[in-house]
């Protein structure tokens, strides 16, 4: 199990790093094997920062990320390699993930020289082909090609195949399909869902609610570094309770429902200005938590919401 426990990250900004910007604040959730958790937020919500912390690309300011009970930030030296054998990431832009000078399948030989130097070449190429098939790619069509000869969807699947060559248990997928075309996008999504069936845990980071809803078991909604709502996907999308989640769901363009109709369904809860997010003078800037920061409250089984308005009657009706 990959588990985040009150994880925070602050960046130093301004001249001489004099100011502190709190990008992620007290985020806690778990990913079980064979489960897709989608982390949804708008730009600047800190969703990529969370992914990078899981991948040890960023230090954690406060809190703990544990992987099967072991603290990830304590993993050092040769153990790092062992961690990456089990946890891997794939990122947004497939075109800049590759070195254009080398053939795309170089990513596989780099895995071999780094992790499996003793495996004979013939056995290795069988392994590569099996891995390519599991991401629904035809080995003959993609091996021995340069990145510019392959489509974005193929490149992105090659990166997942590369991760699968290691015995990964968890995959951090950061906006991996937002650069792809509608016709190939769904293939990559289905591939992720198939991998989930084989016991892989996936942290699916996206800004697109409909993609998160399609694939994930559990959903975490992040706003300005704070989790505002989380829980089972059908509950978060079925009865969105936090005003922010409701606003998000109402602005997703849908195919068979006009915006006006969705709005009528999700009658906006008039909460005025949120005392925590908008008016609190140090919100988002201070390392000191707001005095009365809303905490996540359980509204039903596997559905948590962090909002003061939960006490009011209006929201209770919805929940």
């Amino acid at each position, binding site marked *: 199990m990959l588990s985040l426990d009150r994880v925070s990250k602050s960046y130093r900004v301004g001249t001489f790093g004099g100011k502190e910007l709190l990008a992620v604040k007290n985020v806690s959730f778990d990913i079980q094997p064979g489960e897709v958790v989608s982390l949804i937020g708008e730009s600047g919500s800190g969703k990529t920062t969370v992914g990078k912390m899981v991948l040890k690309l960023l230090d954690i300011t406060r809190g703990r990320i544990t992987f099967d009970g072991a603290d990830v930030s304590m993993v050092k030296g040769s153990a790092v390699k062992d961690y990456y054998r089990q946890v891997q990431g794939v990122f947004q832009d497939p075109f800049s993930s590759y070195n254009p000078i080398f053939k795309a399948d170089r990513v596989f030989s780099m895995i071999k020289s780094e992790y499996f130097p003793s495996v004979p070449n013939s056995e290795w190429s069988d392994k590569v082909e099996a891995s390519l098939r599991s991401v629904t790619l035809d080995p003959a069509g993609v091996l021995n090609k340069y990145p510019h000869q392959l489509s974005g969807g193929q490149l992105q699947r090659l990166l997942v195949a590369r991760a699968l060559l290691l015995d990964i248990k968890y995959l951090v997928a950061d906006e991996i399909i937002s650069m792809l075309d509608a016709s190939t996008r769904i293939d990559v999504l289905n591939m992720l869902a198939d991998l989930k069936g084989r016991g892989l845990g996936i942290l699916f980071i996206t800004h697109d609610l409909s993609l998160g809803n399609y694939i994930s078991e559990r959903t975490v909604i992040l706003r300005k570094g704070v989790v505002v709502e989380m829980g089972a996907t059908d509950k978060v999308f079925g009865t969105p309770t936090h005003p922010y989640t409701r606003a998000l769901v109402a602005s997703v363009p849908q195919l068979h429902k006009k*915006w006006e109709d969705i709005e009528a369904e999700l009658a906006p809860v008039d909460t005025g200005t949120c005392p925590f997010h908008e008016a609190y003078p140090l919100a988002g800037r201070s390392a000191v938590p707001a005095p009365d920061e809303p905490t996540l409250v359980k509204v039903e089984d596997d559905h948590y919401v962090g909002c003061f308005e939960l006490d009011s009657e209006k929201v209770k009706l919805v929940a």
Partner: protein
Amino acid sequence: MSLQVTDLRVYYRTLAGDVKALDGATFSIADKEIMGLAGESGCGKSTLGNSLIRLDGRMRYIGGSVNLDGADMPIWDKDAMVDFRFREVSVVPQYAMSAMNPTRKIGKMIGELVESRGIKYAEIKPELERRIDLVGLGRDVLGQYPMELSGGMKQRMVMVISTLLDPSLLVADEITSALDVSTQRAVAETLVSFRDHGFVKSMMVITHDVSILYQIADSILIMYAGKLAEKASTATIINEPRHPYTQMLISTLPEVGVRYKEKKLTGIPGSPPSLLKPPTGCRFRARCPLAFAKCVEEPPFVTVDTDHQVACWKATGTDA
């Protein structure tokens, strides 16, 4: 009839030969119509939009005509187009983030822009301020530099500037794709309000996101590999598309409410053909589940119903 495009062809010059990005487009946009233009990347949708504004050095005009409000636009002549650009036909570019001059305050930049068209800034300023209020920006943006605005604000500012002279046609190229969902909606609704206020007569909204078009467009034109595939009213394209490509494209879109567990969506197998040497006949043939012998001939873009044109032998009922 506001815009009438007839058999327009624009190719890209490359060392390997001509890339036939737009290979014969015939369609029209009526007054007050917002037409959505959708398709995969590389299908020629941006080429079509750009060719109505300005042909850059790599683009080569091959043939066809563009008629706007009864006047032929000389789109092959960059200099003659100056009279049309901004006044008659205007564009909101994809990257509004970098569309404004970063070294000028926004008000000053607009002043230089309108004066290049022989209009005094002081005369247009009241209208400009009214429109800034309308899109929900403060009037003080005129005294600010573009870097002081957020992405959504810049996008709305560029929309105000582009439509300042009330052009007849506005081309909006992927203007919502770089934005967050809530900003996306605000920008899309601003487009509709511009049409309703009469700032622009008709609009061409280019995007790969069909669900945005369902929200705001009156009609949708689907392109595939440099050719027009289907054009019809929004409801018809979404609910009863005739072209197999449109049908497959619509069915690949995940919606809120559709879950992998309950309903597995499938993509379109294969990839679009290279436009350097496009296949003869129907260009969708290789990926089409309905393809048959007749498809080696090129299907014409014909009217099958009121305001509904399709380029497919099956859809037109021509079974061989």
